[in-house]
């Protein structure tokens, strides 16, 4: 069990496993963008000077309604550190056909063209309709 001493478990300690490493700098941001399909899995030595990285950052900012600066600012870092699903947002490959994978491999489902366009903002529109408020 996770260790605690108080009756109400208010001192429940975090598990011994690590905390997720937050995105704090350009290198961790590069890893984030690569992991979730915004760039190819390359690690330039100086991502700040890499136009591919900058462009990917802009696309991420655009998709997340952030100021499109191409700079890793506080708002962008905060967005990257939000709880999120582990499935990549995009698959940046030449082959856009579906690839079915097993849990033992290292890639996820491909994103179809329509969703890819949505994710990278070329056909992205903001839907301002209210969320449904009816109680089930």
């Amino acid at each position: 069990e996770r260790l605690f001493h108080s009756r109400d478990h208010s001192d429940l300690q975090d598990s011994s496993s690590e905390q997720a490493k937050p995105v704090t700098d350009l290198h961790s941001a590069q890893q984030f963008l690569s992991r979730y399909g915004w760039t190819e899995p390359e690690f330039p030595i100086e991502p700040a000077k890499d136009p591919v990285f900058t462009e990917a950052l802009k696309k991420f900012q655009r998709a997340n309604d952030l100021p499109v600066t191409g700079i890793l600012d506080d708002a962008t870092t905060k967005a990257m550190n939000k709880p999120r699903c582990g499935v990549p947002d995009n698959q940046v490959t030449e082959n856009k056909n579906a690839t079915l994978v097993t849990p033992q491999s290292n890639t996820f489902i491909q994103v179809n063209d329509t969703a890819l366009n949505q994710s990278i903002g070329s056909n992205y529109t903001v839907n301002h309709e209210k969320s449904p408020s009816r109680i089930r």
Partner: protein
Amino acid sequence: KKRFLNMLLPPDRDKNGQVVLDRTETTAFARRSLKWRLIGEGYSSQLSIEEQTYAFKLAFRMWSEVTPLDFEEDTTSPISQIDIKLGFGTGRHLGCAHTFDGEGQEFAHAWLQSDIHFDDDEHFTAADTENGISLLKVAVHEIGHVLGLAHSHRRGSIMQPNYIPQESAFELDWSDRKAIQKLYGSCEGPFDTIFDWVRKERNQYGELVVRYNTYFFHKSWYWLYENRHNRTRYGDPIAVLIGWQGIPASDLDAFVHVWTWNQDASYFFKGTQYWRYDNENDKAYTEDTQGAHYPRLISEGFPGIPSPIDTAVYDRRIQSIYFLKDSLVFAFDINKNQIVDHFPKRLTDVFPALVINDHPIGNIDAAYYSYTYNAIFLLKGKEYWRVVNDRERWQNPSLPYNGLFARRNISEQWFDICNVHASMLKM
């Protein structure tokens, strides 16, 4: 004979012998009935097994309510026969190649047409109001991936990659529904009966206000259809015996609301019998104010009308009930309590086709008068025909009385009226 040929599956069956609709390589499951399981080695350390199972069951139901897919929890079959397996883990988990990152950031991931893993280092909660991450919301999102949906940055979409705390109960909106229906199609008929249930209420000024709700019935369940939102009520279908006391629990034939200046009676029909419904007490009469006992034979209450009927609908223009059976129509005058002269007539004569060779001919599933559209609809299978109404005839006198417009798909007029697996009906 070459014995190995016996091991090959017929082209239309999968390894479990189930009918496969499409063997082309797509991101969608080929089957429409899918099995899922919360695997024993993947229980969360934070929630009871019941809480985890309930959240997953409800998540699957939410997708089932908008797609022609059934999801069944299967805890007994061999694991190889389970379509979707769910489990919790931390770090390196469940034989998965993708390691979880600890508390924060990544909370779950999913594999196309396969498994869902939840990071047990995250604080998942079962209830909407608690701090933490709603297990239900994450499960709905991940099931979306399993079914073939990708991330979307559209505001309001359940497929947004980031977790957004719920301000109120969340549901699948129009765009999410259409996205999944692009993969799996829309839900279609047939239906047993459809009607608008009229309620009389007093507003805050004491004025009498008349409202109505639209209900669709199929087998042993029913839906309330919200016309203004183009969808069913969240959480439907519901079992008939839960919402409608005292009438048959399944396979109704018809509903009729007789409404005149001096009559206001609602009737359900099944087989050779019919029931009158007590609006005030929300249950069927056993004996009404006139002393009639229910259920009552159709032949007693409506002399000359054969039974069972296919369906029926009240036409207030002529103050008669149209009873439809096979290819015939019987018009019953509710004031004279007898069949109208010169009836029965052929369906094709009472409701003539406006488009040549476009007519249901007979064996109608449901006849429905809609206050939303001020028109009668005849439904059969997955299609419907709309009847010309008085306003349309006034605008275009060349239209025949009770003419039938060309057929259309039910799913193009009333959206997302979907079944769920029987095990989910009582949730």
